[in-house]
């Protein structure tokens, strides 16, 4: 039975979770991004028609794009050669390159710091061009790091760095982490296991946490410092000028075509780091807004540039039919709708990010290459390669797998010592105590009312409508009133059993009253005649006949009352902000979004309910040993 229920939870968890996982996977904002950058030649003094590009995961990714497109060799923004092909890890030029691939500047200055960081931290010279590659002993250093998924909150010490285990699989040196603008070493500053990194001291609030996976990583951008993965005695040198292989865009270079494509897609629509060039000229990637407000009637707008592509709400307009241009003044055939997004893209726009298509404002001259200095694209879903992986990595599942819940059980119960009020068992006992107290009160009130109703008929007529009306008031609305009243009476409701006891009693007394009245009236008329024949007093008749006859009914309603009183006690705990009981724990976990813990609490509550009802059953067996059945109550004579 339990096993079947648990087994059923798996398909239910998948049924409810997979659509969310699929959404999560398809949402581009969750994808990992990767940047395609110009590939500097790996050897500073390389020349001739074959230039080494080196090999690293980052380089391989770019090279794979170059193989599909057409590579271009550039120095800075100057095109040196087009029609470059890739052969393994080498770029093959149509004509040999004369002179070295990179002209190196002065050595970097070592930065003084902790002794264990000596030989790792260097400062770039101020004269270094931005983003210039570094060479160590003539060989290119590859920059690379991976970021942690969690944000530093000042307290967290464990971080997940997806892909870290794979990236550092071959690394035997101690790993280096960059926390904010400081570098820390594995062993002294942190420990790592798989993709998990545990720091010795918690990174400061909002400090970016990265792990170096390449040869080096920027350390403090403002100070122009870098940190190397491995210490060196010789300082690296920065390339003052260097040649690089870049991705040429594919398309028809006929002097008329303006649509070209990038290889790595989908593109980021807005990418401040995207640098595209036509020949030696860099294209402006921004767009311009008109000087005038788009009010729905105005047709003439002024832009900063006198050229470019015009779009309205992302839709490209055609010059000549949709609008006429006179310098930087554009006149529309029809006024754009009020508040429409009217933009001019001076040089190009991304016309289809999913296929990597860009449209240039002016067609390049024949033979003039269009090439990308750098751009960013969505590389892969951040949550995993398949929807199922995304399902598994979801931080919150609508319904968790039972084994996940099972894994949480021990830590859940042992998270706090029993002396701590956050201990689950302690909280459970607290709520159980509240419920039992409320049940005792509820039973007392219920039985007294029932006796009153049966003995004094006018009482029933006068009070019964009120008793019924009392049960139509939702407890959730009642508790705040109760809390206010108790607060005024000086009761500290946050740490008091009183609200739970009152609310539980308020709920539990009703079934007890109804059950007891039914029981007291259920007496066999012949049994009453017997009492009469014995000339028994009314009190004797009540104690020896009516009351014992009502006991099974009383217990049946007490079982209903126990379950209801528990719910009442939980609601009261939550609404009186009492953190000592189970009710607050449930709400706390729901708000924290820990579904597995919520399920554990759900099972605990259910077990508590079953336990309370069983306790009533046990009491029944002690008090009413003549009973043959559990829940059914009395069934007349034997």
């Amino acid at each position, binding site marked *: 039975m339990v096993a079947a229920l648990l087994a059923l939870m798996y398909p239910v968890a998948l049924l409810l979770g997979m659509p969310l996982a699929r959404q999560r996977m398809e949402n581009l904002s969750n994808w990992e991004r990767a940047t395609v950058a110009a590939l500097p030649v790996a050897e500073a003094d390389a020349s001739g028609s074959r230039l080494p590009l080196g090999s690293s995961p980052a380089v391989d990714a770019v090279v794979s794009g170059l193989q599909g497109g057409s590579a271009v060799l550039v120095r800075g923004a100057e095109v040196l050669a087009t029609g470059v092909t890739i052969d393994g890890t080498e770029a093959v030029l149509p004509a040999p390159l004369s002179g070295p691939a990179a002209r190196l500047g002065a050595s970097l200055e070592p930065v003084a710091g902790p002794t264990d960081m000596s030989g790792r931290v260097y400062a770039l010279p101020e004269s270094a061009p931005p983003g210039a590659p570094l060479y160590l002993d003539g060989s290119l250093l590859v920059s690379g790091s991976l970021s942690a998924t969690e944000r530093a909150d000042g307290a967290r010490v464990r971080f997940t760095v997806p892909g870290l285990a794979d990236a550092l699989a071959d690394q035997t040196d101690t790993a280096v982490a960059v926390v904010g603008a400081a570098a820390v070493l594995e062993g002294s500053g942190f420990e790592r296991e798989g993709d998990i990194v545990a720091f010795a001291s918690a990174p400061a609030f909002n400090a970016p946490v990265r792990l170096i996976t390449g040869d080096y990583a920027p350390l403090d951008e403002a100070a122009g410092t870098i940190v190397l993965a491995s210490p060196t005695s010789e300082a690296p040198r920065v390339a003052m000028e260097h040649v690089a292989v870049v991705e040429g865009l594919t398309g028809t270079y006929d002097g008329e075509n303006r649509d070209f494509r990038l290889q790595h897609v989908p593109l980021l629509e807005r990418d401040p780091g995207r640098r595209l060039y036509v020949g030696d000229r860099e294209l402006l990637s921004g767009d311009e807004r008109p000087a005038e407000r788009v009010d729905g009637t105005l047709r003439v707008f002024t832009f900063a540039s006198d050229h470019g592509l015009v779009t309205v709400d992302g839709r490209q307009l055609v010059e000549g039919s949709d609008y006429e241009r006179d310098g930087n003044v554009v006149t529309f055939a029809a006024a754009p709708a009020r508040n429409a997004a009217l933009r001019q893209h001076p040089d190009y726009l991304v016309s289809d990010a999913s296929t990597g298509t860009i449209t240039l404002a002016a067609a390049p001259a024949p033979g003039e290459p269009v090439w990308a200095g750098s751009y960013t694209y969505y590389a892969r879903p951040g949550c995993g390669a398949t929807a199922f992986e995304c399902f598994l990595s979801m931080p919150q599942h609508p319904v968790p797998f039972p084994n996940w819940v099972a894994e949480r059980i021990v830590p859940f119960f042992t998270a706090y010592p029993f002396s701590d009020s956050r201990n689950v068992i302690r909280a459970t006992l607290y709520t159980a105590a509240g419920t039992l107290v409320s049940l005792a009160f509820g039973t007392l009130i219920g039985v007294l009312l029932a006796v009153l109703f049966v003995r004094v008929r006018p009482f029933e007529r006068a009070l019964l409508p009120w008793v019924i009306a009392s049960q139509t008031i939702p407890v959730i609305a009642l508790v705040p009133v109760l809390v206010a009243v108790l607060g005024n009476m000086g009761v500290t409701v946050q740490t008091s059993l009183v609200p739970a006891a009152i609310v539980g009693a308020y709920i539990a007394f009703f079934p007890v009253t109804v059950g007891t009245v039914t029981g007291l009236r259920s007496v*066999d008329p*012949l*049994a009453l*005649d*017997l*009492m*009469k*024949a*014995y*000339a*028994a007093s009314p009190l*004797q008749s009540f104690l*020896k*006949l009516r009351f*014992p*006859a009502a*006991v099974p009914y009383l217990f049946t309603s007490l079982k209903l009352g126990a379950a209801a009183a528990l719910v009442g006690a939980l609601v009261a705990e939550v609404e009186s902000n009492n953190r000592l009981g189970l009710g607050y724990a449930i709400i706390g976990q729901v708000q924290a979004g820990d579904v597995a813990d919520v399920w554990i609490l759900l099972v605990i509550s259910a077990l508590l309910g079953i336990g309370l009802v069983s306790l009533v059953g046990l009491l029944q067996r002690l008090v*009413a040993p*003549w009973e*043959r059945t559990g829940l059914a109550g*009395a069934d007349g*004579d*034997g």
Partner: protein
Amino acid sequence: MAPAVTSPVISVRAVDMVFRVGKGEAVALEDANLEVMDGDFVSLIGPSGCGKTTLMRLVADLVEPTAGEITVAGKTPRQAREDREYGYVFQAPVLYEWRTVIANVTLPLEIMGHPKGRRRERARELLKMVGLERFERSYPWQLSGGMQQRVSIARALAFDPKLLLMDEPFGALDEITREAMNLELLRLWQETRKTVVFVTHSIAEAVFLSSRIVVMTPRPGRIREVIEVDLPYPRTAETRESERFFELTTQVREALRGAPHGGGAAPSAAEQPLQRTAGY
């Protein structure tokens, strides 16, 4: 040992009983007259609706008559009830299911305030008498119907009333159990010398048990005839096979059917005291 023939234990004179049924009325009993002497075993027999049970309930003061006069042991029925003059055995055993067998038997003693030790002693005696001493700790549902009814008889005898009112106590039992119970009841009656009023609709049972049979007819409930039963005591299983038994059952059956009869009843009434004396 002859019965004392001083004053009747029960005297019913010109009693009418009318129940309101909805807006109309139902006459349960009309002009009922009956005297039950000390030591009598009187059976009330008749078809359903003839007022047998009503007559019993009137005697027991469980209902009050519309008209007429009833005395029980020379008192009003109410006084007699309050003085606990009679024990009553209902159609159903009416055992309290939350009490063990022995606690059911001690119930009247508890109510009447007998001392605790004495109560249990008395209850054990009675359970032994009805053959249920081994079941004193059982709950009623653990007993068969016949056993339950024996417990209810023991309970009725618990406080040793002189008069025992039994309303179809064996009605729900099968024939075999019933005959065994009949023998047992006769034995009890002879041992305890009580006056018994016994409601039944079994002719054989009435003839076998009674010293007198009151034959009643329905719509409206009336006492048609009182038949003296002159079968000798002690009666045994063989009594049922005697010729006189068949004659008497025939006489009762005819009385029930409303057939006219000769002076058969008169001589037997005259003979009856003699016969009974001879029986002892």
